[in-house]
């Protein structure tokens, strides 16, 4: 009845579309090897600044995983002339939101501030980056806070599933197999000297980028960045690459025990591709159809057709080397195996034939249309430019993004599905009530199954 009526009703179509251009930006190379990337946007009196440093988790020294993360966080905890409390107080009195984090591919110090306060806020940012204190007491405190975070992670089934998936996905010696922020063993081993050493080796002005977006002119931004960083000298650090090879080339099933869990956290996938891969655009469209959108095959199947879950999605995690491709969902314990079978079936089905024209147009129209909505804030523009710079994307990347999405065909999607989805070498991690889910999962005949505790230790047999 509903369908018949909906044929008869004329739905409003789109009006003429108004053009949108990603904010124009300029790149200015400074004579100490730093680069300024500035996008003046004058809608609100705010400026966002990202400083990108080639000091990500991939560069962690073996055995000391977590140094990159601690080093970045410690920038907020005191300088040669200010203790951490004073630094926080001064930044916050300016209304500045400031953060420092390391992800796989770099450290990012980010700040958003009223444009009227940009000058004093940059003075503080200079001290943070150029004269961090790394006080013993703060090092010890942040290590303890990281250990607390790890304890929390072990009791959070979703976070635990993410961790165990990466751990079993990559080879044991790969940096990608261990937590970005370090684990109990590596964090405990880190001393102040390791942090100081990492800082001196990697926080070098040559190769750093300062991204500025918001209510400021290029000339003014240049003058201010020159003022705070212009006389900083230091050679570029040597780039470190992660080993992104998979641990297994065949299907493996790892069950991680969480007694009486009402749900199972499922992760199913394999090693994906690097961010700079030429198939990026067709892969983004392919993933949108498979599990990237609410109306994707995986979500409509697991959530809307079966009611197994509150949500299911798939994603390629984009890094400099190949990050994971993974389907993630949390499903009711008694349908764990059924949900896994459906998700695996959807991955395989992507390779079996052309997607429907309606599926292609949904993905393409969404990705094309949503583009301007992604860049409403200075912080979002700053983050987008950071991605462009970090992955060395072409200068016209944002201007051609929508065209390149629209150029993707159903044939392209099938080709990249066949090339980059590997149903024969999937890793499945299920965190849940092992006693209840092992039997049904085994009956899927997915592949060899092992059982582990929350630290990943083998507890079966």
């Amino acid at each position: 009845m509903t369908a018949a009526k909906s044929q008869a009703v004329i739905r409003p179509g789109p009006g003429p579309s108004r053009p949108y251009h990603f904010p124009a930006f300029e790149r200015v190379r400074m004579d100490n090897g730093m680069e300024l990337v500035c996008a003046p946007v004058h809608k609100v009196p705010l400026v966002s600044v990202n400083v990108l440093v080639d000091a990500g988790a991939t560069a962690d020294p073996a055995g000391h995983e977590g140094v990159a993360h601690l080093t970045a966080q410690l920038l907020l905890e005191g300088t040669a002339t200010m203790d951490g409390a004073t630094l926080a107080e001064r930044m916050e009195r300016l209304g500045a939101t400031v953060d420092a984090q390391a992800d796989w591919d770099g450290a990012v110090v980010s700040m958003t501030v009223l444009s009227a306060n940009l000058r004093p806020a940059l003075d503080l940012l200079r001290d943070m980056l150029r004269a961090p204190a790394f006080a013993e007491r703060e090092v010890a405190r942040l290590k303890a806070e990281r250990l607390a975070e790890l304890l929390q992670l072990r009791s959070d089934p979703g976070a635990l599933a993410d961790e165990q998936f990466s751990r079993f996905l990559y080879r044991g010696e790969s940096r990608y197999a261990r937590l970005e922020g370090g684990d109990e063993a590596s964090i405990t081993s880190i001393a102040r000297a390791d942090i100081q050493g990492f800082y001196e080796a990697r926080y070098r002005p040559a190769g750093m980028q300062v991204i500025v977006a918001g209510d400021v002119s290029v000339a003014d931004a240049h003058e201010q960045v020159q003022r705070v960083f212009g006389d900083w000298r230091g050679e570029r650090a040597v780039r470190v690459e992660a080993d992104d090879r998979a641990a297994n080339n065949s299907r493996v099933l790892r069950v991680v025990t969480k007694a009486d869990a009402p749900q199972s956290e499922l992760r199913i996938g394999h090693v994906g591709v690097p961010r700079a891969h030429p198939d990026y655009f067709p892969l983004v469209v392919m993933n949108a159809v498979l599990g990237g959108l609410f109306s994707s095959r995986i979500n409509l199947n697991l959530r809307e057709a079966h009611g197994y879950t509150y949500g299911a999605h798939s994603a390629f995690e984009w890094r400099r080397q190949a990050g994971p491709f993974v389907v993630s969902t949390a499903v009711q314990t008694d349908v764990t195996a059924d949900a896994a079978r459906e998700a695996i079936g959807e991955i395989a089905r992507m390779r079996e034939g052309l997607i429907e024209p309606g599926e292609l147009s949904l993905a393409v129209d969404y990705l094309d249309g949503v583009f301007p909505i992604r860049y409403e804030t200075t912080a979002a523009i700053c983050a987008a430019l950071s991605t462009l710079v970090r992955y060395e994307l072409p200068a016209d990347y944002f201007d051609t993004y929508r065209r390149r999405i629209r150029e993707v065909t159903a044939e392209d999607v099938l080709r990249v599905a066949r090339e980059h989805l590997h149903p024969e070498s999937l890793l499945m991690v299920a965190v849940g009530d092992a006693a209840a889910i092992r039997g049904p999962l085994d009956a899927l005949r997915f592949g060899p199954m092992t059982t582990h505790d929350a630290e990943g230790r083998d507890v079966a047999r």
Partner: protein
Amino acid sequence: MQIPIETYRLPNGLFVTLSEDHTAPIVAVNLWYHVGSANERAGRTGFAHLFEHMLFQGSEDVGANEHFELIQRAGGTLNGSTWLDRTNYFETVPSNQCELVLWLEANRMGKLLPAMTQQKLDTQRDVVKNERRWSVDNQPYGTCWERLQALCFPPEHPFHHSLIGSMEDLSAASLQDIAQFFATYYTPDNAVLSIAGDFDPAQVRRWVDQHFGPIPRGAGRPPLDNTALPARFGEWKRETVPDDVALPRLFLAFRSPVFGSDAYYAASVCGAVLGLRKGSVLHRTLVRERQVAAEAQAFTFDLTKGCDLLVLDVVARQGVDGDRLHDEVAQVVDHVHRTGVTPADVARASALIEMDFTGAVQSAGERADRLSMFATYFGDPALVNAQVERYRAVTVDAVNAFIREYLGPDNRASLMYVPREDTGEAEPVAAAAEAGR
């Protein structure tokens, strides 16, 4: 920064607010219905939220899940959310797709029921039960919201019961409940429609008239049960929850003045002084100096009826047990209660609040949501433009007056989570044995 605002009412009672901004070809549409979990009848906890899910299951001229598909196909983002006293639905789309969104929202406001089936209800019931398992039952501290409400509001109070609801009550919900709830609350005179961004106001008014105009007015919203409460708890309530968590975590709640009142702004600034970012009193004292907490923050519920709640949320560091954490937090609060806070504390908090507000309203969706909020609660969306001034007007004396009146031991409720092992149950051993079979 002032947001331009136009408001009017349709003859059927729909309150409309428009806010133009042509900097990007984007428009946000936002609908608030003045109904939430507080309006649920006994035995139907979780129904308002389940109903929100059903609003994505189609209407007379829209198929199941088609709402999502049509918006995403238009290049838009969308969702809905349910709170104690309101439910909202929102979309942000390229501005040339504005009419589609208005049509979709009007279609489900006017003609939801023909699309409702038992099968859709059963599926969404399963989805919501899985939402509960995921966000509440299988999540460390996941029960904190429902436990806080249960602890802070007396059993007969509309804010007492769980928003996501119990499994039993979700199972009991019927199509008849759907029809009744829809007829009672999903009416134009119980809704606010806000549109923010790039649109032509004359054209948008025509579309609103055309699509929403024919929807009949409702019979009037039944009043909530009495929400009035004493300003303070009158005691120090305490509850300890042994749970499957790794670290003790304390939620310390205070009854506080309702959202919108002058004293609310003092309470909100007090919350920021105590728990907003690294320069806050809790972070400075418990995380940095005493090193007993791994994280500390504060928030308000922003309730407009009965009373609001100001809540401190502190996670222990490893090796600090629940009792110790409770003592340490209490000492800080006692100290603040005795000595008050400083002008520098208030200046820091106000600067951050103003900055966060300016940052948030860059987004059309955030602007539209705030317009709907002030229109729903106070009948005046222009209050959005008074927020920065109201925060600036908060003096250190006002914050300290709030502190003296509300942070004392006669107005506290402690909800403490502790690791279950503390109680002597040996679950991890059982788990390992189970897995070894």
